[in-house]
């Protein structure tokens, strides 16, 4: 029961993240949305494993911990990139995608 409840929570957070990614223009918002989606995936990662002797499996715990550190690293770098882009272009947004812009 608890597992199902948290699966739905993860699904809701993931959906909200997708929503944020679609409606956000500001890069910070996009990053926030991606981080929400990542949290949802981490939650699912743990929920997908079978508890051993009543305790959560240690392997997915280690995987999620690694995932959290990778997520914060990527986010930190993306933020630095955003600041530099803002400095050079005056915009904290990406222009609408045009395949042939030079």
């Amino acid at each position, binding site marked *: 029961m608890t597992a199902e409840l948290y699966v739905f929570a993860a699904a*809701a957070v993931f959906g909200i993240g997708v929503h944020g990614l679609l409606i956000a*223009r500001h890069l910070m918002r996009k990053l*926030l949305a991606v*981080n929400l989606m990542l949290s949802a995936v981490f939650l699912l990662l743990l929920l*997908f494993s079978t508890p051993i002797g009543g305790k*959560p499996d240690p*392997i997915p715990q280690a995987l999620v911990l690694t995932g959290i550190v990778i997520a*914060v690293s990527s986010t930190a770098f993306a*933020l630095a990139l*955003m600041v530099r882009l803002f400095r050079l272009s005056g915009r904290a947004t990406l222009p609408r995608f045009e395949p042939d812009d030079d």
Partner: protein
Amino acid sequence: MIGTLAVDLLLVSILIGLAWQVVRGRVLFRAIVFFVAFGLIMAMIWGRLGVPDLALAEAAIGAGLTGALMLGAFRRLVEIDARQAVSGGLRPSPRLSLLLSLLAGLLVAVLGLAGLELRGGSGEAGRAALDSLHLTGLGNPVSAVLLLFRGLDTVFEMLVLLGAFLGARHVAERDRRSGAAIASHRLPMVGALQMTVVPLALVVALHLLRAGANDPGGAFQAGAVLAAGGVLLTLTGRVVPQAQAGLLTRFSLIFGTLMLAGSGIVPLIYGGVLMAPPGKTAIYAIEAAMMVSIGVTLSLLFSASAGLRAVRS
């Protein structure tokens, strides 16, 4: 039973509400603050699910440091151009995106339930980890997985952190800020805060490090707490960013990875096994080195600089 279900429902509904605020809140600054709150609720959920290691990591790294990094970047945007920094918020009338995200949510719900159906697998690797735990001298299986059974993952995880730092430093290098941080450490209150919190952060980090062998905790959580101290010192202007890093700073960036990878290679010299498990004392040394590296790297990521120099007060 009803009680725990009520707690679960409460946590889940707060989590979803906060996520919604992160995405739809009008003011960007508040969205970031809501994200930090979201991380804290996530930490409580990890605790509720019986994984205190993740609760600690989420609170320290997922909520605390990510939040600090985001607020720091936001402040930098505002410093460059306060008006443009917050422009380009949300797209208007997002009906289609609502539909799409509803679909995505449903898809993940279905996937998640399918995943729940699928489990029932034996958790072979997890069982093996618990069975082999006595061979390692550690009591916390998560630490054993991270440092020993899947040590290579951790080596490369540390390299990801290093790569993020190198990349951030490269783009920030030509971006020296005009004004230094406000030297608020000279304010009496802030000075007192520093005097209390920074040493305490050190103590807590060491405690987490030591505890990690048998209880929840470990190098990553400890490093994040250490970095929190570094962030505080940077914020208050007690230390100032430097364009060049001294040898000591550069060494501390790779210290942890060097120790972890080195301890994996050294056995080869004696004809041993690659990434063979080191002894318990060596594990403590490796973890301490990793804590230093993580703390230094995260602090430097926050200040987006090559190094930090203390300012005499």
